[in-house]
């Protein structure tokens, strides 16, 4: 045996997408990528993949469109609300709707997902009220849903930390003998964090029923993928002893099929899988970010040709599965949702200041109880003084 230097070099050359300075930009039509699972082309044509047969009803297909359109509308409304000072910040999912809905809908009852801070589409698929997500970005709380009940963890802002939680949760599932699986979300930037790689070590070592779902949206804030990895991210997994696969992250059907297969394998005891959903962050990193400083408009334009929603719309129209009335209905529902979100957000009451003392521990300490009491007395005295 020999060092694999040459093999690796050849591999990189073959994949090719790292040739240009901008990832993916040299290959605006995804089918050029030989290692990408795709079931729906950017033009909206349904293609088959022998490894990933997918049966999906017309109703489900329309449902996906509806989900993605609604989530995009939510996202736009949230961005607007932030601009108007109603949110502290907003992390947009624009362009990643297919990755998130495909993955979210692959989950079954009893499964658990661990998001980053951008998985609004998955939250939607898990039935989390958008206002719970809004309350976090408004600064009212850190997300008001019950993670275990919802099968959807709280947003995790420290990059990568949730991958270990997901793996540990999966080890619990294993101990319970439950037929469930866990889906850990992470970004391309997160793959560089030590903790994420430790999660892969633990997942492999214990054959834990966890699937790592990496949305490679090409950037970690301003840093392009090449800084994190010179080889496609899905290949990271093999080095840890489990399979990796790259899917077209803007193709909701392919994402669904691939994620479903991986979750099924996990449930059946075959251990972890790493999924790289190849996608693109169409907007800024967050509302605080200015992407014109680090990427060219042309790149965004090229990715618009692969828009995940337009693609499904083209397919639905072309194949006669949906008509103008359907699309209008979705638009109307989206507008309604936006109104509900706007109203719910601007009317959201501030939490009582004492809230900060109340959930620190399950068993309140005398020290904190005293500090809380002092705080209340201080506040009261202050109000008294102001009278």
């Amino acid at each position: 045996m020999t060092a694999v230097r040459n093999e690796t070099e050849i591999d990189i050359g073959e994949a090719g997408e790292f040739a240009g300075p901008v990832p993916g930009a040299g290959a605006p039509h995804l089918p050029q990528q030989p290692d990408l699972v795709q079931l729906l082309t950017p033009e909206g044509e349904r293609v088959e993949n022998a490894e990933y047969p997918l049966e999906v009803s017309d109703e489900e297909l329309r449902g996906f469109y509806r989900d993605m359109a609604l989530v995009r509308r939510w996202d736009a409304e949230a961005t607007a609300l932030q601009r108007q000072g109603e949110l502290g910040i907003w992390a947009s999912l624009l362009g990643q709707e297919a990755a998130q809905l495909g993955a979210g809908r692959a989950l079954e009852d009893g499964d658990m997902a661990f998001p980053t801070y951008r998985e609004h589409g998955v939250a939607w698929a898990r039935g989390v009220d958008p206002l719970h997500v809004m309350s976090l970005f408004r600064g009212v709380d850190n997300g008001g849903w019950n993670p275990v009940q919802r099968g959807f963890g709280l947003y995790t802002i420290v990059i990568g930390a949730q991958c270990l939680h997901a793996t540990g949760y999966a080890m619990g599932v294993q101990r319970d003998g439950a037929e469930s699986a866990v889906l850990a979300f992470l970004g391309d930037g997160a793959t560089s964090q030590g903790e994420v790689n430790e999660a892969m070590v633990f997942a492999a070592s214990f054959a834990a029923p966890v699937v790592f779902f990496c949305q490679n949206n090409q950037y970690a804030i301003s840093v392009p993928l090449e800084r994190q990895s010179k080889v496609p991210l899905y290949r990271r997994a093999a080095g840890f002893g489990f399979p990796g696969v790259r899917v077209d992250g803007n193709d909701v059907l392919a994402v669904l099929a691939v994620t479903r297969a991986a979750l099924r394998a996990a449930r059946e005891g075959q251990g972890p899988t790493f999924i790289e959903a190849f996608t693109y962050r169409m907007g800024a990193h967050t509302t605080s970010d200015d992407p014109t400083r680090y990427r060219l408009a042309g790149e965004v334009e090229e990715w618009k040709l692969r828009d995940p929603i337009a693609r499904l719309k083209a397919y639905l129209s072309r194949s006669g599965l949906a008509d103008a009335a359907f699309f209008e209905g979705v638009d109307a529902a989206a507008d309604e949702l936006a109104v509900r979100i706007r109203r719910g957000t601007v009317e959201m009451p501030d939490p009582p200041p004492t809230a900060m003392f109340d959930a620190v521990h399950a068993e309140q300490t005398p020290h904190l109880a005293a500090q809380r009491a002092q705080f209340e007395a201080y506040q009261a005295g202050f109000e008294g003084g102001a009278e």
Partner: protein
Amino acid sequence: MSTELLDLPATRTLTIGKALNDGLRRAMEDDPKVVLMGEDIGRLGGVFRITDGLQKDFGEDRVVDTPLAEAGIVGTAVGLAMRGYRPVVEIQFDGFVFPAYNQIVTQVAKLHARSRGAVPMPIVIRIPFGGGIGAVEHHSESPEAYFAHTPGLKVVAVSNPVDAYWGIQQAIACPDPVIFLEPKRRYWDKAPVDTSATPEPLFGARIVRGGDDVTVLAYGPMVKTALQAAEVAAGEGRSLEVVDLRTLSPLDLDPVVDSVRRTGRCVVVHEAPVTLGLGAEIAARVTEACFHSLEAPVLRVGGYDVPYPPSKLEEAYLPDLDRVLDAVDRAMEF
């Protein structure tokens, strides 16, 4: 499941190490959700043998030899806790807790608050801590202040077999995360343990020797040192009241304040560097609470503000009974 403990007399003389082992065993028998995790804790029984025999009796799913990655251990423990388990993590030595620091500070400590109480974090992180065993670097540290400064964590330090036996069970039963500090150089200290007694609460200080002249506070390995100092002082006609703090976060200072109001003098002893060690917080609080009773400032005896030195120097570095007595003298002369 083993019934090893059932056949034994209620009161036995145990080392701290064995008391921990028995306590862990009993906790595992009482609650099937208790899972131990750590490096070398299974087949080897841990480098200090605290988990000796437990994997044999409870199996590999409940006593888990993990990969060599502390963040991984604590981070997966978080996930297990979310799934309803009660993970008990062993960090092999104090100096190796830092790779897990991010998980401890940003996740373990915060998840209950983050979820507004929806996600309890009943995780125990056991750390053999402190010096005096002639070890190489990173094996002799006292990181308690890092944890006591972190809201959301509870921190305890045991000093004797009785507290070890009950404390580990109480920490496991606690719905909050507990950093459980074990005085490694005292692992072999012995005392009778009545396993049928009703234990004292975990989060409380205890006066372990009465006295009138100076109140001496210590925890973990330094309790023995403080008691030795009190013994010598008594021979010189000086009466020290010794308090075993037991809980470092929350601190239980009520008995301390009562004591200092009587004695008017207070000395705090710990191995950690003095600067921002527990003594700093205690001095600040005790001074505020006892301002008009104090005859001298609260004095601190601790490690110097240097990295823990090579073992040939640790005797000079570590507080010993002479340094405690020196501080007592200074407090008396103030």
